[in-house]
């Protein structure tokens, strides 16, 4: 006579309720459900931020270069400022503009270009994360990095005697529209060109914008003709607007805000029209 004794399978100590150890029948039984959308977007943002901050060149671009520029231009009597006031009050808004440029435009264009090239965007397209969710995750990641940059730059600037004026709401509006404009341009560029070309153009634009965008050299040092064109660059609008508020205490810099809003609209439309996911 045989006696069979049914014993329940021992449960793994780390197994969640109802989960079977891989290898036992049924452990791969389908249960495909997406995570809640908010959680997916936040996971994507955290993931991209972590990867970005691990990348040496990106940290150099986003954090080290703006911080060094702030310290060097303020401490050393190089370059001339206009409008009177202390050097730090002139340079701090310009360098904050550079921080936004580096993160929202240069770093994002390069990262997205290579993600496209390596098929990362294609692969993520097969997950439950929708495309707009991927863009939302990227935007959130840019904002996270910008927060780190701004806190760092503001601490350095305050230590160097910076006394900012104006309405913080106006500053946040300028930063938001600047980020939207640069982020849109980054996606347009990286979505239309090859990764290597994106890398070259993004770095070139970064340098040119620092040179002619009112970051360190005041726009009024250029001739009238050049100035009337340069002031419409998104970087000039951002640095002008930040300086209007933080240095001169302007309540709401409508001109620069309008220019940035126009750039944001055009850039996002261009990205939507020309971005290729593969």
């Amino acid at each position, binding site marked *: 006579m045989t006696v069979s004794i049914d014993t329940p399978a021992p449960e793994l100590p780390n197994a969640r309720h109802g989960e079977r150890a891989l290898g036992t029948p049924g452990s791969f*039984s*389908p249960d495909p459900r997406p995570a809640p959308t908010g959680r997916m977007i936040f996971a994507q943002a955290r*993931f991209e931020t972590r*990867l970005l901050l*691990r990348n040496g060149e990106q940290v150099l671009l986003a954090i080290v270069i703006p911080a060094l520029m702030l310290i060097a231009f303020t401490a050393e009597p190089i370059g001339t400022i206009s409008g009177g006031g202390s050097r730090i009050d002139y340079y701090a808004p310009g360098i904050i503009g550079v921080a936004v440029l580096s993160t929202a435009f240069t770093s994002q264009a390069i990262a997205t270009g290579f993600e496209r090239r390596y*098929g990362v965007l294609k*692969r993520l397209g*097969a997950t439950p994360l929708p495309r707009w969710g991927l863009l939302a995750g990227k935007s959130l990641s840019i904002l996270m990095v910008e927060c780190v940059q701004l806190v760092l730059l503001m601490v350095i600037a305050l230590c160097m005697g910076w006394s900012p004026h104006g309405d913080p709401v106006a500053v946040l509006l300028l930063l938001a529209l600047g980020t939207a404009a640069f982020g849109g341009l980054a996606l347009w560029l990286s979505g239309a060109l090859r990764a290597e070309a994106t890398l070259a153009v993004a770095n070139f634009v970064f340098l040119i914008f620092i040179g002619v965008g009112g970051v360190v050299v005041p726009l009024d040092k250029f001739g009238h003709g050049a100035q009337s064109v340069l002031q419409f660059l998104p970087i000039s609008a951002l640095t002008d607007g930040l300086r209007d508020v933080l240095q001169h205490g302007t309540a709401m810099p409508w001109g620069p805000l309008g220019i940035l809003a126009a750039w944001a609209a055009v850039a996002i439309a261009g990205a939507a029209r020309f971005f290729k996911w593969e």
Partner: protein
Amino acid sequence: MHETPPAVEIAGLVKRYGDKTAVQGLDLVVDRGKLTAVLGPNGAGKTSTIECCEGYRRPDGGAVRVLGLDPIADAARLRPRIGVMLQSGGIYQAVRAMEMLRHVASLYANPLNVDELAARLGLDSCGKTSFRRLSGGQQQRLSLALAVVGRPELIFLDEPTAGLDVQARHATWELIEQLRADGVTVVLTTHLLDEAERLADKVAIIDAGRVIAYDTPQRLADTTKEQDSIRFDAPAGLDLTALSIAVAPGAQATEPVAGSYHVTGEITPDILAATTAWCASLGLMPRNLQIEQRSLEDVFLDLTGRELR
């Protein structure tokens, strides 16, 4: 009650790239819970077909339904339910293996246990290695892990064992067999005929953008079984006519090389018995006696030709 739609339903699919037509009028229906292997020479249209199912490519003609949904129009509803393993890439170069797996797992509500999955695929030892430093085989296995981690009901694997060593190939096969046993529908493309023969419930052979054969591996091989043969060695110059009469009408005897005899046809037990009886009547021991059955590879070569693409 509604009838459950098939896992994949392709009718008259056409896909062109410029002047080149990669897929021309392809029809295929994949049943749920089955493992279907898509075989074909390079450039036959396998990847184009799979990518139309995954929603990556828009068909130029015909209709594709996956789990009853349109892969492009219903992408938001379909994508959480399918797992996709791309032929290559798709992963950030700087990301660590486990970091990537954990991230993709976090996009699903009830993912597999990532540590167990990694251990199962031999990825636990390289969890902290960046993707670009993984070996080709490790990259493939990570890619497979990403495809299954969300507990999909249908999974598309594009050449899942390409470039794997023997151990990794077997680990991958065992995982795929278990997915199927647990009710996951699997569609895989492959160049390896033994892979298709071992894993597949059904094999679709694609050539020049069309399905030219679609059946179980066994029945595909059976369709040409009149070309099976019994082979043995014996002294040269035996009476072939007598042997042919002995095995007639189902088969016929030849001696392609002196001392090496082939009895070719649909090999039945009667024909085998007749052959050995004939040897016995001559007092001969047939040496190296073997029965050659047509493999899927022979069928594949017959159907798709032998020229290089």
